[in-house]
């Protein structure tokens, strides 16, 4: 017998209203660390407040409310209950659930929890040491607090979109909701900090997480260049995010290689890297003395980039990367989804197979960390709508089967 594996958050229970990725992504991490995350959904709208519920990409051949692949991924390992909070009895049940929970989490628009009667002050009346974390785009206070946001908007307003692109072109931005992922990471951090503080002092609190402020911390060097040196980011030649401004590196970028939409990324950190690379290229221009100095490579960076483009297009991206890595120069092919998910053995443990009550087995994302004493675990897919009503309202809150059945009949759950 091996000893039972401990889970870091095995004694934590979360009363969870989160959805989409910015919120659900946070509590997914907590569930993987062993927290009991009880996700509350509205039976009247069949959980569709979360726009990812029941939309493509579909899991396998399944279709419908339970078959959304994104929803299944972001809610893996959580429990699901339904509560129609228009009904006073449902509010009572929610109060009972809050009373036995360590944290309440949500990413509604600002003010929604207040209108439901479950703002922070009301939550504290139920449980004085509750940890409450709200996450929305603009935060709970300030003139834009009613404004709407999701990933691409948070990225636009925070500066992340502007700082991703090439000069004289529109912003390329992030081709996905980077800030939904990252907002979720900050939310998970905030919940855990709140829980840790409570563990040590007995004190609960409210964390007001504005996703755009979290995003606004992610370009700190560019921000300081403006606030300290009065050098605005919006200036000629900028942004150029495939180059490296801090530290200065050259050449540094992404070049087209042989093949259909195939590219290689190369970062020459210093003069030694360049010397090694110039020998790998092995052409008369690459071994010219002038390129040996970073000052020249930076000054004539466009010319150097053009030379490299002409060289790279005749080569294979993997071959370029391997040869450069072999001589100590950072380089990597731009991997396509299939290549990194199916074939990259270095990250193969990330993709885990889970069971889902209705749609069977599917693959979802795990966590890119390993903890020696309390490993994470993701084994169950997202919960079906109301799947855990009996456990939560029965076992946890003490209702008997008949009561639960009549609550369902009355439209309370």
């Amino acid at each position, binding site marked *: 017998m091996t000893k039972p594996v401990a889970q*870091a958050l095995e004694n934590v229970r979360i009363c969870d209203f989160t959805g989409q990725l910015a919120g659900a992504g946070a509590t997914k991490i907590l569930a993987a660390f062993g927290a009991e995350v009880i996700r509350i959904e509205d039976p009247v709208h069949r959980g569709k407040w979360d726009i990812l519920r029941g939309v493509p*990409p579909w899991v396998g051949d399944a279709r419908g409310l339970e078959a959304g692949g994104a929803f299944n991924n972001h809610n893996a390992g959580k429990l699901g209950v339904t509560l129609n909070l228009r009904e006073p009895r449902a509010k009572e049940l929610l109060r009972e659930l809050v009373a036995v929970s360590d944290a309440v989490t949500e990413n509604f628009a600002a003010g929604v929890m207040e209108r439901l009667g479950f703002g922070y002050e009301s939550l504290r009346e139920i449980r004085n040491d509750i940890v409450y974390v709200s996450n929305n785009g603009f935060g709970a206070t300030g003139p834009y607090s009613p404004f709407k946001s999701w990933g691409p908007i948070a990225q636009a307003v925070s*500066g992340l979109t502007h700082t991703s692109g090439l000069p004289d072109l529109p912003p390329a931005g992030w*081709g*996905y909701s980077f800030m939904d992922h990252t907002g979720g990471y*900050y939310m998970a951090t*905030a919940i855990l900090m709140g829980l840790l503080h409570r563990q040590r002092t007995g004190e609960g609190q409210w964390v007001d997480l504005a996703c755009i402020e979290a995003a606004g911390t992610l370009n700190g060097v560019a921000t*300081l260049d403006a606030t300290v040196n009065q050098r605005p980011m919006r200036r000629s030649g900028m942004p150029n995010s495939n180059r490296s401004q801090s530290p200065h590196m050259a050449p540094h970028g992404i070049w087209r290689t042989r093949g259909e939409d195939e590219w290689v990324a190369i970062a020459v950190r210093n003069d030694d890297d360049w010397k090694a690379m110039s020998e790998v290229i092995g052409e008369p221009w690459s071994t010219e003395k002038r390129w040996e100095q970073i000052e020249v490579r930076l000054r004539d960076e466009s010319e150097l980039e053009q030379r490299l483009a002409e060289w790279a297009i005749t080569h294979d991206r993997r071959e370029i990367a391997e040869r450069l890595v072999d001589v100590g120069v950072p380089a990597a092919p731009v991997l396509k989804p*299939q290549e990194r998910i199916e074939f990259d053995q270095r990250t193969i443990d990330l993709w885990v197979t889970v069971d889902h009550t209705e749609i069977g087995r599917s693959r979802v994302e795990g966590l890119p960390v390993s903890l020696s*004493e309390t490993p994470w675990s993701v084994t169950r897919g997202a919960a079906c709508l109301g799947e855990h009503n009996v456990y939560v309202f029965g076992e946890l809150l003490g209702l008997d089967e008949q009561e639960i059945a009549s609550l369902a009949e009355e439209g309370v759950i």
Partner: protein
Amino acid sequence: MPSASSQSVLSGYRVVELTSERCALAGKLLADMGAEVIVVEPPEGCATRSWAPYADDEAGTENSLHWWHYNTSKKSVVLDLDSSSGAQSFTSLVATSDVVIEAEPIGRLNALGLDWEQLSHTNSELIWTSITHHGRDGTDPPSTDLTLLAEGGPVWSCGYDDHQIAPIRGGGNQAFHTACHYAVPSILAALLWREGSGIGQLIDVSMLGAANVTTEFATLWWLNGERQVERQTGRHALPTMSEPTQIQCADGKWFNTGVPPRNRQEFQALRTWIEDLGLAEECGVYEILKLGDQYERIGVLELDEDPLAGEVFHAGREAIEFLGAHLPAYELFLGLQKRGMACGIVYSPDEMIDDPHFIERGFPHKIEYETRDASYTHPGAPYQFSQTPWSATRAPHLGEHQALIDDLLG
């Protein structure tokens, strides 16, 4: 709201960080929430101290803005780990610490007798965090933020409709950030568990893995249906090309139009705004916009079944583009959002920090630099805690807290 606690979230915890651009953010996130984070630098100082840009463009150990940003609220000690006295001091320091964070080349610390396996014996509560390319058991290829984002997935999804243009690495060191964004919750979970069990542990963070699980639909479309997303200018990469969502406004600034109006209230609000601006006659889709009154909601179903719904929906989109051609981006942003429509101005990071909303919330954070007799604005709190506020002080000078080591060795 109740008054603030006398204690910071992480006060009383000591964190030792072996300085590196790869793990600096993890240390900062803990330090700004009250942990005592001691950053251990080599005698010549952290490499990032010699990274441009510099304050006033003057190169110097204390002037790198990279250092300033990533090392707020930390303490600095100098230890030469290659010397026996340095190694000994490090060992003593770790013995008094709760958490170690390091992103050293694989094998280096082990060869010095300073790795987890060697130091955890003297401190069973120690939480040791390694940030490596793809795990402590892996190889250690030369890599940077750029190469990690390229082979980790994000780059594939970012760029332009025109695939002759290179895919794009988003700016700001986000591969390193993302690894730290997984390291910190892992450390906090380990601390919570240690509060009950008294047992520390090893946390092994893969930078390549962190990038891989931070690509949203590129991964989701592959795992569910084996479809490959294609990059598109300023919007989500998807298996098929979608409509543009980025427009250039009258002042030349870019703007994310978000989701155009989809219900009666929104169509009416948009139309009335165009009327109020005196632009109704000029607006080519004004008449079609009126038909929006007929729709409680234009969803996927309506777009599928009712050709007129499609026309009205497109008119809403065109009306926003029309307004953008007449208004500066900021006015369009306020005007649409106040009328309930989600959209975003494309700010640069330094414009965001100057916006009245974030100023009113206290996001811009002044930090004193007493030796320069100045204070400068940093990006502020990523989250606002009601009881245990975030705070940040300037990054330490090289070896500024060396006395800590002297005290330790008595």
